[in-house]
């Protein structure tokens, strides 16, 4: 029987939740990397036992962890006792160094600081790890300050795809309240040269040449919190999602507004429709129905909890605009948790499972595409990310 493996990143470690295809009985392992912030854990679709985790700490910086056995054991790639020819230790899995100008050696570009001055890029942490769809040793990392890195040796060394920061709009990017982070990486399953990324607070960007060159794709976004609401960049995109059968259709949860593009991001239109509030962080697509999408409305940008204290997932079966509240099994009073941008995922079993984690430490599952929900775990540390692997 097939099964599922849920990879949960929290403020104080990683947890792995496993079940068979019935999704009734769960085994919980963890905390892995206890006490460290785990921003994201994700498995390779080319080798499901290959997992990558972003482990970070305000004290000790960034560490990359890799598992080759589905999370039973972990290693820091290149962190063993081997040495480079010059005798220096080879442990560079946590080394993320931005490209500098090849002409001057100076920083490639600067970005806007909170006071309006220009500020150099400073690496802080990895928010998101996106393994290649075909090669378990190739992984993309979205980092803060916003940049995109790639490894092709299983996480041992990382190189920046500097065309993103360097394409020209970098000096207009600015950090949001959560920092200036590249948090979403979407690989197009039909076109290995195409990828999309999203940055807070810069917007969405697309590459059609494997990450070498990039362009902003923010036409149609409207953000009242920037001087020019329809500017080319500066939008606080919280998350974008696609369905692998229809990769030109993108769905976006922006700071405010839920948006849709039918042309790979060339233009966007609002699909917030009858949502009680169109602020939120997560958005995801049903595994088998490309027009069925999910969001979790959050009251506002100053009140990061569900409206009326009722935790509700909203589902649209029409690709947006028409939304229904999904409440069965979710707390409908006195609930003031948040659901962060990387904390929703779907499995691909016949009855699509939908999962999300909260800052209150619950991970909820719906095994019937959202009709009803049950907590898998209730008392983890604040959940930062949820990913699901559907296992053969």
């Amino acid at each position: 029987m097939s099964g599922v493996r849920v990879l949960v990143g929290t403020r104080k470690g990683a947890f792995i939740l496993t079940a068979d295809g019935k999704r009734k009985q769960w085994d919980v392992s963890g905390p892995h990397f206890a006490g460290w912030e785990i921003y994201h854990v994700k498995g390779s679709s080319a080798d499901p036992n290959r997992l990558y985790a972003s482990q970070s700490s305000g004290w000790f910086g960034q560490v990359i962890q890799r598992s080759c056995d589905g999370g039973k054991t972990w290693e820091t790639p290149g962190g063993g006792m081997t040495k480079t020819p010059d005798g220096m230790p080879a442990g560079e899995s946590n080394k993320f160094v931005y490209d500098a100008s090849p002409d001057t050696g100076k920083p490639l570009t600067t970005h806007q600081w909170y006071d309006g001055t220009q500020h150099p890029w400073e690496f802080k942490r990895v928010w998101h790890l996106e393994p290649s769809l075909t090669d378990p040793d190739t992984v993309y990392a979205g980092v803060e300050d916003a940049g995109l890195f790639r490894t092709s040796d299983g996480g041992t060394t990382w190189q920046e795809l500097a065309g993103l920061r360097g394409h020209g709009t970098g000096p207009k990017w600015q950090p949001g309240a959560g920092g200036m982070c590249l948090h979403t990486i979407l690989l197009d399953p039909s076109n290995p040269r195409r990828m999309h990324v999203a940055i807070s607070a810069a917007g969405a960007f697309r590459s059609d040449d494997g990450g070498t060159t990039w362009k902003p794709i923010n036409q149609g976004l409207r953000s009242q919190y920037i001087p020019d609401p329809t500017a080319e960049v500066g939008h606080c995109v919280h998350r974008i999602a696609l369905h692998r059968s229809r990769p030109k259709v993108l769905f976006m949860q922006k700071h405010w507004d839920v948006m849709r593009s039918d042309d790979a991001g060339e233009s966007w239109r609002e699909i917030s429709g009858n949502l009680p509030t169109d602020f939120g962080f997560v958005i995801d697509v049903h595994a088998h129905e490309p027009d069925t999408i999910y969001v979790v409305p959050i009251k506002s940008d100053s009140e990061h909890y569900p409206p009326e204290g009722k935790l509700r997932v909203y589902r649209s079966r029409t690709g947006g605009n028409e939304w229904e509240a999904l409440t069965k099994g979710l707390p409908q009073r006195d609930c003031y948790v948040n659901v962060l941008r990387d904390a929703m995922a779907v499995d691909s079993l016949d009855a699509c499972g939908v999962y999300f984690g909260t800052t209150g430490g619950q991970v909820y599952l719906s095994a019937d595409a959202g009709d009803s929900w049950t907590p898998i775990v209730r008392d983890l540390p604040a959940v930062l990310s949820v990913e699901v692997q559907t296992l053969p």
Partner: protein
Amino acid sequence: MIRVVLPPHLRMLAHVRGEVMLDVPGQVTRASVLAALEAQYPMLRGTIRDHVTEQRRPFLRFFACERDLTHEPPDAPLPAAVVAGAEPFVVLGAIAGG
């Protein structure tokens, strides 16, 4: 042998318990101890000092023999008791809640 005490998070990362014992060639300084530590435990590279600048991470300090050596020059000799292995060189994380 030089004795080094690591904070719990770094002991976990390096898969060690208790003190770390290091053979430090040449003069025993903070820089040479950290270099020997990173050579023996490469997974610690970048966690105590920056990969590129080798600057100490802001929330870490270095103690030995009941003295705060954090702001001593990195190439200054460590106390004789550390060199002799009588006292450990302590890498300490700042205390903070949460």
